[in-house]
């Protein structure tokens, strides 16, 4: 659950005469081509021949949330093993091909998605696509590699059990989704990771990796004509469809609870949240603006101003929207001295209430929106990020013109929208608050769920 969208924003009432608010259209230089290979594999492409670099990303629906019970961590383990030997190349040979050719190739699994990433110098492009194809279609899962990666994952799990932020996140999700895959760690537990067999790994690859369920983004020094045949050789022999799976929709269960996990540290880590909006909700843009004012804008948000700037209670405090495929949340976090945790929570709740109860002004709306639209161009700063953007737009079904249209969606947001959303969603009493540390001034209402 590490991937989340957090856009910088700003609030504030300002009268600065020197400013001109005509915001540059960020990505005006970006033209997306839809490339369909002779074999029917589709990718979106942004050609850019400035540097001899080619980047590809893909994402498939279905990630850790589809892991079978007792085998939690399977998708993650597969992602760690696809680049550890494939075809005729054992792990060392495969890794060495990557390293000697300066090719970056990796896979990852979130709760909702299984994703891949490839980056290469132009001169090694064909080799890079070959290795990517091999990894996707003929992973070896040799015993040595399986046990080595398993040991690495187990070490990571052991470390995360003592890390305050990991404990806080994990407790939050487990408490809110006790009967849903989102309540489980996407990387699995020691026991479930220990139970994963080579057959499980192979079965995942055979059933879950399919070209029809994949969205692909490519950017850099490659033309559409050059890319089309590469799409066929790379993805063409994957099955058309992945095996169907079903995951129920879930809503947070631990409404308004305060959960304390005792840990002997000088500073408490706080995670809080309640329900949010799915990405395809028409109000998502208004909610994004609202969240910027509340806790999304880095140095200008209300939470930052009230908790950090005015009171010096925390180094970091923030909120963000977390729309997943099967649940939507409005989340936040802070880290604050044990003796000040009660006060910090009071301030966060009162800002949550103020945001709900007192309408924001047009000036505040404009300031937040100007930041959101004006900073968009900064996301196109490298080849891999552009390929990633193409994947995200397809994954969320935003349309091939989204980059041009995005500003319009935000410009259409009205004060009425914002204040309506605030009343509908923001509820300080519904916030589930998880604290890890030795907090003072905090009365737990619920014990942490085991696990």
């Amino acid at each position, binding site marked *: 659950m590490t991937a989340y969208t957090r856009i910088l924003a700003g609030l504030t009432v300002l009268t600065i005469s*020197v400013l001109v608010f005509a915001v540059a259209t*960020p990505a005006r230089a970006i033209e997306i081509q839809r490339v369909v290979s002779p074999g029917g594999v589709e990718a979106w492409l942004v050609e850019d021949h400035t*540097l001899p670099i080619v980047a590809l990303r893909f994402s498939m629906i279905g990630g850790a949330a589809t892991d079978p019970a007792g085998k939690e961590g399977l998708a993650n383990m597969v992602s760690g093993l696809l680049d550890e030997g494939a075809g005729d190349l054992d792990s060392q040979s495969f890794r060495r091909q990557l390293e000697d050719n*300066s090719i970056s190739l990796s896979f990852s699994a979130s709760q909702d998605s299984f994703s891949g990433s490839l980056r290469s110098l132009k001169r090694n492009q064909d080799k890079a696509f070959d290795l990517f194809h091999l990894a996707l279609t003929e992973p070896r899962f040799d015993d040595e590699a399986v046990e080595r990666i398993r040991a690495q994952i187990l070490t990571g799990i052991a470390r995360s059990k003592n890390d*305050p932020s990991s404990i806080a996140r994990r407790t939050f999700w487990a408490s809110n989704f006790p009967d849903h895959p989102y309540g489980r760690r996407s990387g699995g537990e020691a026991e479930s990771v220990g139970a994963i067999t080579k057959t499980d790994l192979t079965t995942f690859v055979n059933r879950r990796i399919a070209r029809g369920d994949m969205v692909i983004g490519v950017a850099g020094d490659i033309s559409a004509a050059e890319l089309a045949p590469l799409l066929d050789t790379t993805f063409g022999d994957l099955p058309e469809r992945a095996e169907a799976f079903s995951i129920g929709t879930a809503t947070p269960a631990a409404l308004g609870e305060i959960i304390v996990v005792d840990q002997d540290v000088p500073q408490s880590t706080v995670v809080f949240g309640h329900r949010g909006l799915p990405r395809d909700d028409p109000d998502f843009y208004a909610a994004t603006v609202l969240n910027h004012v509340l806790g999304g804008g880095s*140095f200008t948000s209300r939470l930052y101003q009230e908790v950090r700037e005015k009171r010096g*209670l925390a180094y970091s405090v923030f909120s963000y929207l977390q729309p997943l495929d099967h649940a939507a949340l409005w989340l936040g976090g802070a880290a604050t001295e044990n003796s000040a945790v009660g006060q910090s929570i009071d301030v966060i709740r009162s800002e949550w209430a103020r945001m709900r109860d007192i309408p924001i002004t047009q000036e505040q709306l404009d300031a937040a929106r100007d930041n959101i639209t*004006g900073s968009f161009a*900064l996301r196109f700063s490298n080849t891999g990020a552009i390929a990633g953007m193409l994947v995200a737009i397809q994954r969320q079904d935003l349309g091939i013109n989204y980059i041009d249209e995005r500003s319009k969606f935000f410009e259409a947001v009205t004060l009425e929208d914002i204040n309506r959303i605030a009343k509908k969603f923001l509820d300080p009493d519904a916030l589930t608050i998880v604290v890890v540390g030795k907090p003072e001034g905090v009365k737990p209402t619920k014990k942490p769920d085991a696990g």
Partner: protein
Amino acid sequence: MRNRSKTNWRGRVWPAIGGSLTAIFLFTGIAAQPADAQIFNPTTYTLDNGLRVVVIENHRAPVVTHMVWYNVGAADEPPGKSGIAHFLEHLMFKGTKKRASGEFSDIIARNGGRENAFTSQDYTGYFQSIAADRLPLMMELEADRMTGLVLTDDIIQPERQVVIEERRSRTDSSPRALLNEQVTAATYSNHPYRLPVIGWEHEISALTLDEIVDFYNTWYAPNNAVLVVSGDVEPEEVRALAEKYYGPIPAKTLPPRVRPSEPPQHAPREVVLRDARVDQPSWSRRWLAPSYVSGETEHVYALEVLAQVLGGGSSSRLYSSLVIDQALAVSAGAWYSPDNLDLTTFGMGVSPRPGVDVDKLTTALEEQVARFLETGATAEEVERAKQRLVDSAVFARDSLGTPARIFGAALTTGQSVEDVEQWPNRISAVTVEQVNAAARAILRPETSTTGILLPLGKDGRS
């Protein structure tokens, strides 16, 4: 760093700047390219008041990164005043004679910009990334706070708490970070690099307004700064803007950067931290090593290659022997960052597999290192390492912020623009003999410090 670096988009960490309080930017792979190519082709000039300017053109998107780097960091703090450079970095956002506290950030936010700041042992930097046509505004704001900062006790008190919370987040909450702080303190006997950049808590708590203002007045000046502009700009326009906004600021008489230097070291040190929060042990060792500009500098480029041969990737010596062949470790690597003004370190680190005794792993590592020192690297290993480093140059250009960070760090740690541009050629010229000579010169027990992180109670050692 002024704020958490979670400015993520879909999990991709936006330029890794200031992710740590030490200088991490250059690591081993600044950038390089096959022989004789220029990497970044910057335009450089110096204003009459001594401000050095570097412009790197990048016209891929209509955006710009604007950075000001000061030649002052934690290692320049007066004795007993640790944390002052970093505390001041926070306070630089608090307003000037012309701008109220927070106004700076409000203006940047309103204009769609992102900003942050960072402090290392050797430099302090401030940056904004924003639409290219907002560059004049960024210069106006940054030039204003170069000399116009206004501080009072009321301003510094809440921020002091923020800094202490930052210390708790970064260091006190993490056994790994606490050990690292202790190892650093043991690595240098006399040089101020032994002190944490963020400062010791009792010294942060005692810093006074006057001390902070003195530090600012002493070091923040155009002739002690480097302006780096990277993005969709024309060098001559940047020059005109820099003249307009930074040009009028008078130069100051700067004190010399005098730092106590490191005496010869005679005994290896070992620091062990046991903590209830540790499940999995880890081990690292650092050796005192030259930087680009200090110590036995003839070994620097060879050491960059050495770090790759020993610990760069899974085909490296350490990973292939300890993680794959002997199956003792879950991770193994080596690192070396020569972009320090004074002596740096060459490091190696490993974590045992669950159930493997950390001493057994350490013995295996020492055997590998001893064997390497005896027989040396192969020609093939060196060639592969050099190719990877040289290739990394192209990737370094694939970013708005990376080239700016590379020049800022280089110029504030005693290197020249030419040094950066020649980096791939110098890497390419490294020979097997030089790698072996560098390893033998640097990997000596008496200049090493070892850090071991262990669980409490149940022992990871025999």
